[in-house]
C-alpha cells in the first residue's frame, strides 16, 4: 500500500504541474507578459493579447478544471483509491 500511495501522490503532483503550466501560460504569459507582442496579431476586432486577457484565459480555465477532474478520476481508479 505504501508504495501505491507514493505513486498516486507523484502522479497527482505531475498532473497538477501540467495543468498549472497551461494555466500560467494563457494568463500570465499570453495575457500579461507577451500581450504587447501578441497585440500585433488580431483576432477579428480583438488584438490577440487583449483577447487572451479579457476572454481567452477564462475559457481555458474552465476547460482546465474539467480536464483535471476527469484525469484525477482516472488516476483514482488506476491506483484503486476511488470512493465506493
Amino acid at each position, binding site marked *: 500500500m505504501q508504495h501505491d500511495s507514493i505513486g498516486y501522490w507523484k502522479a497527482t503532483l505531475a498532473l497538477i504541474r501540467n495543468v498549472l503550466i497551461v494555466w500560467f501560460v494563457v*494568463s500570465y504569459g499570453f495575457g500579461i507578459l507577451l500581450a504587447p507582442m501578441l*497585440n500585433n496579431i488580431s483576432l477579428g*476586432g480583438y488584438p490577440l493579447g487583449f483577447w487572451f486577457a479579457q476572454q481567452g484565459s477564462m475559457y481555458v480555465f474552465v476547460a482546465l478544471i474539467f480536464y*483535471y477532474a476527469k484525469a484525477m478520476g482516472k488516476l483514482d481508479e488506476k491506483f484503486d483509491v476511488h470512493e465506493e
Partner: protein
Amino acid sequence: MSLQGITYLVVGLTFALYIGIALWARAGSTKEFYVAGGGVHPVLNGMATGADWMSAASFISMAGLIANMGYGGSLFLMGWTGGYVLLAMLLAPYLRKFGKFTVPQFVGDRFYSKGASTVAVICLLAASLTYIIGQMTGVGVAFSRFLGVSNTTGIFIGMGIVFMYAVFGGMKGITYTQVAQYCVLILAYTVPAIFISLQLTGNPLPQLGLGSDMVGSDVALLTKLDQVVTELGFAKYTTNTRLSTLNMFVYTVSLMIGTAGLPHVIVRFFTVPKVKDARASAGWALVFIAILYTTAPAVAAMAQMNLLKTITPGIVAGTVDVTASDAQIKYDDRPEWMKRWEVTGLLKFEDKNGDGRIQYYNDKNKDPKFAAAGWEGNELTVNRDIMVLANPEIAMLPNWVIALVAAGGLAAALSTAAGLLLAISSAISHDLLKEKFMPDLSEKGELLAGKIAMACSILVAGYLGLNPPDFAAGTVAIAFGLAASSIFPALMLGIFSRTMNKEGAIAGMLAGLGVTMLYVFAHKGLFFINGTEFLGLFGGKANFFFGIEPNAFGAIGACVNFAVAFAVKRMFPAPPEEIVALVESVRIPRGSKEIGGAH
C-alpha cells in the same frame, strides 16, 4: 408605468421569489438548511456557488472599473476566475476529504493547536470584514439610485436591509434560493449587454460583439474606442497597463490565490457529497461565473463608448474635431439619466470654464490643444461604481431592463453580504467563543453572540463604507489580498507539506497578514480610517515597494508567509506522527465520510 414604479415592482417580485423559495425549501428538509449543496445536482450547486461568489464587486463595480482602466482591468477578470483552477486542484478535494466545516477547524486540527485556529479566525475576520466594506459601498450605490436618495442615505438603508436579510435568513444556506438569485443576477447582467451589443455592433453575443465592427462602418469597436479615448488625452484602451507590468502581474496573483483562500467560498466545497464532486463542482461554479465574467469586458467597453457618445457625439461619429467649440453637449441638454444620477451625488458636473458645455477629458495630459481650446480641467466626474447600473439608462433601453439591473445589483450585494456575515458570526461565536474562551456556552448563547457579531460588523462596515478606501471592487481586492497572504499559504502548507509544524504555520500567518496590513494601512489609513495614513514612515511615496499598489500586495504577503513558515519550522520539533498520518489520509479520496447535520 414610471421607471420608479417598474423598479419597485421588479425588485419586489424578485424578493418575493427568494422568500417564497426559502419557505418552501425550509419546510421540505432541515438537513438541506445546514448542508448547502448536499444531494443537489452539481450544476445547480455550481449556480448557487456562483451567486455566493458574485458580489456587488463583480456585478456593480467591476465593469465600471474596467471601462476606466481598459486593458489594465483584465487583472480582475483573470484574477477572479483563475483562482478557481487553484481551488479545484490544490484545496477543494483535500479539504473535502478532511471533513470539517470551517477553515479555522482545519487549521486547528492540522496544526494540532488551538492557537493556530485562533490565528486563522483573526485572518478570516480581517479578510471578511474588509470584504463587507466593499459590499456596503456597492449596496450604497444600488440603493441610492433605486430609491433616488443620496449615497449616504443609501448606505444607511442598505445596512438595515442587509442586517434583516442576514439575521432572519438561514436563507443563505438554502441552495435553491441562491439558484434563483443566480438566475436573476445573470439575466440582469446579460440582457442589457445583449441589447447594447446589438445596438453598437449588430452582434447579439457580447463576447463576440466586443470583437466586431461598429454598426454601419468597417471600424472595429475596440479600434474606435482606442481612437476616441486617445483624442481625449487618455491612454489607449486596449494596451493601458495597470501602473506597470510587474504590478499587474502581482495584482493578478494576489486575486487568484485570494480566491482560493476566501473562507466563504471554500466552505461550499466542504459540503458536497464526495471528493469527486468537490473537483467537478468548482468547474461548474466557474462555468456560471464565466458567463458574467466574459460579458463584463464587453459591458465595460460598450458602456464607455456610449458614455463618450452621449457627451461628445461628434467625436465618436468622427464629424468634428475634439476641440471644436460645439463638440461637447450643453449641460442643459444633458439626458435624463445624468439628472437621475446627480441626485445620488455619484455623478458631478462643474463648469470650470463657464461655457455651459461638458468637457470630459484627461486633464493630466498636457497636450496644448486642450488649453488652446479654452478647457480648464475635466468637468464631469463619474463614480466608476455607477457604470453598470447606469449602463442601460445611457443606452436608452426599455424601463423594465433598467429595473431588472437594479434587482440584479441588489441580489448580488445582499447574497454575498449575508454569506460573509454568516461566516463572521460562526467564526466569532463558534470557532472563537465556544471553542476557546467559553466552552460551556449554550446553543442559545452562541446564536445570540453570532447575531451581535453580525450587527457590529454591519455597523463597522457601514461606517467605513461611507468613506470607502477604494471603489467597491478595489476594496474587495484588498480583502482578497488579506486572504491571500494569510489563509491560502496556511492551507497549502497543511496539505502539501507533511513536515510543517504549528510554530511555522502560526508565524507564517501572522507575518503574512501583518506585513500586508501594514502596507495597506500605510496607504489607506489605519483600519481604513481616513486621515490616518502613515506613508511618511516609508519615505512618503505611494506604492513604495517596487511600485506595487496596496491592493496587489497580498501576493507579496503570501511569499513572506511561506518564507517565514519554513524558516521558523526549522527551529521547532516536527509535527507528531498522527498528524503526518492525517496529512497522508487527506491526500487519498477513499474513505471520505458524508458530512451531515449542524456544527
